[in-house]
């Protein structure tokens, strides 16, 4: 609306054009737009570090096998894990973790497409971190929106499944750019899918020549000991 007569957009009332031009000034800002979230995430990371906890983020498409990966690897870590699960709706993923005897908090985001530092912080209120060494943050299944939002994790794992095809890394470069490890999941399906691992690796290397890649199957157990080693190596990421 124009503010003068309340007419629709496009209809302009007599504006103070000349004086506005005279008074117009430029303010340099040069600040990250997500600085508020980044600051919150940094504070969360520091708080976790003080309590001896490392945050590990999990990013991936819906159905890429993020929760299955947690179900497979957590029992091999010898304890000290807690999980924050992000989904648009239901407590199902948190329940899948709790039946393993591992504390989990569910964030139901409604229609929000990603987690952020504030949501994770709030979820922690319902989670006892006593004796915890690792806080897993499983983001909402989405390869686009979570990428720019720091959730206070120290390392991030990107899960891409064989069923998603070989060119996923190049199609979603922002997600690949924002991770410390790529897990290729569901490798037990490679044959039935006709998945070409060389093509996948070539696609990944075009985006990130340096990032470590671990082929894993939560079902057959392939690659889980390597993943365990990566997790326990901590600082190596």
């Amino acid at each position, binding site marked *: 609306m124009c*503010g*003068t007569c309340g007419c629709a957009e496009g209809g302009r009332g007599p*504006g*103070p054009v000349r*004086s*506005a031009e005279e*008074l*117009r*000034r*430029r*303010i*340099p*800002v*040069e*600040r*990250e*737009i*997500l*600085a*508020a*979230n980044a600051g919150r995430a940094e504070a969360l990371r520091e708080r976790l570090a003080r309590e001896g906890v490392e945050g590990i983020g999990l990013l991936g498409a819906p159905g890429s096998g993020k929760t299955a990966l947690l179900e497979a690897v957590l029992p091999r870590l010898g304890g000290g894990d807690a999980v924050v699960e992000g989904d648009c709706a239901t407590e199902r993923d948190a329940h899948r973790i709790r039946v393993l005897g591992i504390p989990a908090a569910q964030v139901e985001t409604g*229609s*929000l*497409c*990603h987690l952020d530092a504030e949501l994770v912080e709030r979820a922690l209120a319902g989670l006892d971190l006593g004796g915890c060494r690792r806080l897993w943050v499983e983001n909402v299944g989405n390869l*686009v*929106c*979570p*990428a*720019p939002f720091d959730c206070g994790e120290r390392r991030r794992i990107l899960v891409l499944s064989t069923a998603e095809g070989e060119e996923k890394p190049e199609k979603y*470069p*922002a*997600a690949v*750019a*924002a991770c410390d490890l790529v897990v290729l999941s569901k490798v037990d399906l490679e044959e039935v899918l006709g998945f070409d691992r060389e093509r996948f690796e070539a696609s990944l290397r075009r985006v990130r020549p340096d990032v470590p890649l671990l082929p894993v199957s939560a079902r057959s157990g392939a690659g889980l000991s390597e993943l365990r080693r990566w997790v326990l190596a901590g600082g190596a990421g």
Partner: protein
Amino acid sequence: MRTWRARIRAVHEARLCLALLGLAEEHLAREGGGRITRLRVEVGSLSGVSPIALRGAFPICAAGTAAEGAELEIVEMPGRELRLRDMEVTDDVRNLRMR
């Protein structure tokens, strides 16, 4: 039909818009207030942000703020940066007097 689709696609850009407006208003207050007429934003190609969705979300988010009706200039660049480079501000008091 087009509108709700655009809105749903713009969910996370809307949130970014609110963060952008918060940052802008914070700086505006520090500079003595006024009205924002133009915002210049750098969007990295790997920032995970869609310039189209950002542009679509901006007028909706800016309504009722000091940046209502402001022009959003998006500078696309390589990398992961997402920054508010600068903004153009006009004196609010003079505007009110003119009306």
